[in-house]
């Protein structure tokens, strides 16, 4: 049964991303700021750090599957979120081997990961011609607020999710061994 918890929660995160816009205060929405909820990605980072072991790649697999769902449901262009999420999660999975797992490492990888992912999405969309936002405008109006907002989300869910993930991880991998 515990096998289905993770995919279910990930799907729920995607659903909740769609109503995130309603929670933002009006003054932020009406201005030029763009705050993109990468909540699914924050969740995936926590899975990488607390659920996966060095030789298991569940987080990358989930990044591919649920990145594809985000692509289909929320954008017109299929493949961008899938590719970027998977690559950045893989990168963080690699970093994780070198560092200890504690709250600061998690926070740092959340900041770097969200920044890299959003940057990658910007670059690909820029080349396809979805947006024509200039580099410096992008950093001020989208990258900075997006990273800050997602780090806040990370700090809110961290205490709840961490223990669950560690427990699910030990359950799932004990059974295998």
């Amino acid at each position, binding site marked *: 049964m515990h096998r289905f918890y993770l995919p279910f929660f990930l799907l729920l995160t995607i659903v909740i991303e769609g*109503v*995130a816009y309603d929670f933002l205060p009006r003054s932020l*929405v009406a201005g030029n700021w763009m705050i993109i909820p990468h909540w699914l990605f924050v969740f995936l980072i926590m899975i990488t750090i607390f659920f996966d072991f060095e030789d298991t790649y569940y987080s990358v697999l989930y990044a591919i599957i649920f990145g594809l769902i985000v692509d289909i449901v929320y954008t017109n262009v*299929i493949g961008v979120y899938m590719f970027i999420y998977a*690559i950045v999660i893989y990168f963080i999975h690699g970093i994780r081997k070198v560092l200890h797992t504690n709250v600061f490492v998690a926070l740092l990888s959340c900041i770097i990961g969200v920044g890299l992912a959003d940057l990658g999405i910007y670059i690909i969309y820029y080349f396809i011609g979805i947006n024509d936002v200039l580099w410096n405008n992008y950093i001020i109006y989208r990258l900075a607020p997006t990273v800050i907002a997602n780090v806040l989300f990370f700090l809110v869910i961290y205490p709840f999710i961490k223990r669950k993930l560690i427990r699910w991880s030990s359950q799932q991998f004990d059974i295998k061994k």
Partner: protein
Amino acid sequence: MSFFRRKRLFTILIGFIILVGLIGFSLRDRDDLSTFEQFLHDTVGWLQSIVHVPVEFTTSFFSNIDDIRNTYDENQILKSRLNEYKNLIYEVQELRQDNEDLRNILEKTESITDFRPIQSTVIARGPEQWFQQVKINRGKQDGVEANMAVITGKGMIGKVQSASQFSSTVLLLSGFDRTNRISAYVNSEELEDDVPGFIVGYDEESELLELELNEYDTKLKEGELVVSSGLGGVFPKGLEIGTIKEVSPDRYGLTQIAYVQPSADLNRLNHVIVVDRSIAQPDEIDGQSQEGGE
């Protein structure tokens, strides 16, 4: 070790090729979503409509408190306006009756103004803000088709981008570009004829729509009403789009561009109406390629 590195490089390269393939697949002109995509849209849409209920309850709770504080002042203003409206309603009824009678005499019962409204609720807004999209809880089963206009009580908000069986995606006016223009006209008080033009895009900095006027030398004033003309093929006639904010010559000085303030508030959407134009399309395919393709 080198073997693993090579394998990793290969995986990333193959991933990149798949990415390019998928982007190419989704960017070409597609009329309809594949069954798999529709299934995903509907599944997520179903979950969204469940999640939406408590979320809307909490967010509307706070705005309701705000509203209650202004109730008294608003009530006074509304009372004073009520009498004016009574006269107006009478006048409108007369005119409508008149119009119907005249149409009956001419035996012309269809008009491009007629439409069938499909009531629906916004269940989610796309988090990726470069695609200005919202999702609504009505789909093909309720008669929603791609390219239909979507309005609120105040005015037009966009068009249906793609329809699944039980939910659809709406492209907001703020995401419009040259590929989905709207044929519109300006309802000018001074000039006798309406001034025709096309909504060709959205200026993100000023948050105004760009209306390209067909004639160069028309004089338009601020505050004049912009309405859909119904000539594009899919949208009915007479949907309010917005009011003119300013007029300026375009980059090459050949035409005029009027900047239009949308009447509807695109940031907070809740109940919307999908507009199904009643009159039969003269040439369904032709109309669609004019509206959506190009």
